[in-house]
Structure formats: C-alpha cells, structure tokens
C-alpha cells in the first residue's frame, strides 16, 4: 500500500503523456472522392480494343489539408502518389492476367490547384509513383475539398501504354488503385 501514491502519479503521467501524443500531429490531410469511385473500361468493339479507351476525367478528388503550426514542421504542400493496392502484380481476370502498365493515370488540377505540377500519364505499377505535386510556400491558407480539387484521367490499352489489348483473351480483369496524399514541407 505504501507504493500506491507512486503508482497513481505514474498513471497520471501516462495519461497526460498519451493525450499529448495524440495532439502532436503536424497537419491534417483528407483525400475525398467527389465522384468516380470506380472506373469501368468496357471494350465492346474491335476499334476500342485496337486503340484503347481514355476516360477523362474519371475521378475527382477533393483535397483537404491544414497545417497544425507545430514548431519545426512547416507544411508547404502535398504530393499525390498511386500504386496497385496491396502491391498487386497484375490485372487479374477470372482466367488470365494483364500487365499493370496496361493502365495509365494522370492527375490534373480541376479547381484551385492550377499552380501545381502534373506528372502527366504514368503507368500503374506495384510501387508508389507520383502523379501530382502542389507547393504553397509559405503556407498561406489551408486547403478545403470544396475549393481544391483534382481530376484523374485513366487510359487502358492505348498505344502509348505499349500494351495493346489486341490479341489478349476475353475476360473480366480488375485491379484496385490506391492513392496517397502526402504532405510535404520542412520537417515532414
């Protein structure tokens, strides 16, 4: 029983410590799908199979990002990356597969992010690939999804993918594409 005060003090310190830990995030970030939460490519004619399909825009993202004003961590912008979800290695059909590079994705400013840099169409891989970067240095105002939006365009089987679908077996192929919004700045 003589140790009870010590234990209580330690418990209080622990509680305070964990609470402070939660509050230590340097920023907030939110990637919202405004529309285009799934992308279907339907190849119903030989012309589409030969020349590919481009869906533009296919998806619109809203970007929300705020700086928490933590000393030593100065938010200056963000980058958007993409990859095949869970490092999936190909587009899986019921019986066949297609290479990931059959799909290409591009991100462009739709609203409020015109000073950002688009990396144009990039082939889908199992590793993170950057699609878009935006810098607002110094960070003058936080971004909200209603005024800062990105359009995502998708290509499948077009000549620049190097993966024409001509000759590929008929099947229903699918892949999940994972997008990551990454804050950038001093201390990040």
């Amino acid at each position: 029983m003589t140790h009870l005060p010590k234990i209580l003090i330690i418990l209080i310190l622990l509680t305070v410590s964990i609470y402070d830990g939660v509050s230590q995030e340097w920023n907030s970030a939110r990637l919202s799908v405004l529309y285009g939460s799934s992308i279907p490519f339907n190849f119903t004619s030989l012309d589409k199979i030969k020349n590919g399909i481009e869906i533009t825009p296919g998806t619109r993202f809203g970007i929300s990002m705020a700086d928490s004003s933590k000393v030593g961590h100065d938010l200056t912008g963000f980058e958007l990356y993409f990859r095949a979800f869970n490092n999936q290695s190909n587009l899986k059909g019921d019986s066949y597969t297609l290479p990931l590079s059959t799909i290409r994705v591009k991100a462009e400013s739709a609203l409020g992010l015109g000073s950002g840099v688009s990396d144009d169409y990039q082939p889908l891989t199992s590793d993170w690939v950057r699609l878009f970067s935006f810098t607002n240095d110094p960070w003058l105002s936080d971004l909200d999804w209603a005024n800062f939006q990105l359009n995502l365009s998708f290509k499948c089987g077009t000549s620049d993918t190097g993966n024409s679908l001509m000759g590929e077996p008929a099947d229903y192929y699918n892949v999940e594409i994972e997008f990551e919004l990454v804050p950038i700045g001093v201390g990040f």
Partner: protein
Amino acid sequence: MRKINFVAIMLFCGLTVFGQAVKDRNVIPVAVNLNQVLRMTVTNGGNIEFVFNTIDQYKNGISAEAGPAGSQGFYKTDFTVSSSTRWELNYGAEQATFIGTDNPANTLALDNVGFKIVNNGLKMFNATGVVAAAPANLQSLISVPTDNALEVTALQAYPVALITDAGSTVAGIGANAGDAADNSFTLNWRCGTIEANAVVPGNSMNSVALIDQATSPTPDRYVVNVLFELSAL
C-alpha cells in the same frame, strides 16, 4: 521519488516520438471488361462456279490466275478476319467429293479444285519467302497447307487448319489478332490445272487433266459446299 522523476522524464522524452505527418489514402477499383470480337466476312466471291465448255479448258483447266483478264475475278474469293484474340481458320469441303446435281451418283474428286492464298492485309505470313522483309511482329500468320501462301493446295474435306496464329508457337512473334485491314485475304481458285504442291505433296491438285482422266467425268453440274470456321485460340 527519483524513480518517479526518471519515469516522468522518459515519458516526456517520448512525446516527440508520437509526432507525425498525417497522410490519407483512398482506393479506386478499376475493371477492364474485354469482350470477344470474332468475325469472318466474305466480301466477294461467295459462290464460285467453273463452266467447262471448250476442249482447251478440259486440257488446261480454269484459273483465277490464268485465262482472259476480265474473267479472273469470277474465280476469286475475298474475305477478311476481325478478331480481338489469336485466331484460327479451319476450312474444307462438306463432302468427300463433288456431287452431281443432275445425278447424285456422279462424283468428282475434290482435288480437281484447288486454290492459292493471296495476302492483302498488314499481317504477314511467317517464315519463308514473302515475309522476309516484314517486321517480326507482323509475321504472325501460318498456313501449312499452302506453305504460307507460296503453294497451291488442293481442296480437302473439312476440317483442315488453313490459317492459324504463328505467335502461339514462335517466340517473339505478335498475335494475328487484328481488324479487317490487318487480316485480308483472297483465295484464287482453279479447277483442272494439275498444279503440284512442292512442299506438301499430299496437298497437290489432281495431276491428271480432266480430259485425260481414266474415267472421264460424266457431264453434270458438280457442287460441294466449302465450310469456313473461324475460332479463337
């Protein structure tokens, strides 16, 4: 008390460990639905008829590659293949012989009729002769009966693989899948021309002219349906 101070210091040191940049992720499912396209279109010459009414024709036969220039087109069949996948074209006569229409007991051997393939498309035949200058990715056709469009083949009973995909068996060769511009062919038919197939002797036409055959064919109108079946590989 020292222990408590130590623990407290360690906990406060640990505060910075929990600091982090916040990222966010989202997942978009993408589906690719490839529907099969497979179509053969006969654009000209869907019905071929040889009419023998001179001794010269009985001696030398009738051919799409000989005789009066204006008549050659009557003995040609043009067709195209549009396929989204690798394909194979099987063909052959529906019966083992031609059948007389006036008297079904009259027959004529199939090998009195033959044809040669002419390639009009962008896809080329693999291996020998005509394809030497073509890029490898276009040498995607194989025709064994005609030695890749170099030889005449006699008409045979169904089924015979007439044209198939080279890429399935030869490394580095593209698929023969393509549209009508890629896969366009002409069959130059002939009858009684006694032409041999030097590479596949078994596919040679009858070596005896109609006028010289041991049992002279009974005058009749001989017919047979030639079937073509396009299938995906």
